[in-house]
């Protein structure tokens, strides 16, 4: 039962990844692509959690911690670049 739910969760996360990738490829302006990048990073954090859950390794979550810090800094730097303040 729980295995079925984990399968369903991984499928839904994969669909969300593909939808955000569509916006990244199509998005007309740079700001659209930055939003898609942010959403892809957050979906990546969930994917790392799922991989850690499937492989039963708690050490994998450290990578998710690095991501949670880096996505913030990345979006701040890109936004400063866009408004010509860097």
């Amino acid at each position, binding site marked *: 039962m*729980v295995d079925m*739910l984990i399968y369903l969760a991984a499928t*839904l996360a994969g669909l969300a990844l593909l939808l955000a990738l569509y916006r990244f490829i199509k998005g007309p302006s740079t700001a659209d692509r930055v*939003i898609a990048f942010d*959403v892809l990073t957050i979906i990546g954090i969930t994917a790392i959690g799922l991989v850690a*859950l499937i492989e039963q390794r708690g050490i994998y979550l450290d990578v998710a*911690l690095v991501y*949670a810090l880096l996505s*913030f800094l990345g979006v701040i730097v890109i936004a400063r670049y866009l408004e010509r303040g860097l």
Partner: protein
Amino acid sequence: MDGILALLGGILLVAGTTFLLLGGLGLVRMPDVFNRIQAGTKATTLGTLLSLAGIACLQPAWATKLLLIGLFILFTNPISSQVLARAAHRIGTEKSPLTSVDRLAEDQGNTP
């Protein structure tokens, strides 16, 4: 008791990834940049927090690390979306034709 906790964890995981899927769908369907920021960031923040809570229910030994990740996401994600929206407004990204009010431009003195 253990089975109930595992079932709760699985249901939280599916609910969280459903919110991630809704965020991705909003990212595709919304008409302009500001609506996409709204749909993408809020829905995915809630989705990630619910997923991390589900993983914490399935593996209670990882709860502190997952709580740390959740706190980082909860604090940093609204800041990044706000900074991005301000940058998009400042470089004059074109709004959807359905937009009827722009309080930030009114505050800065140039009425649309």
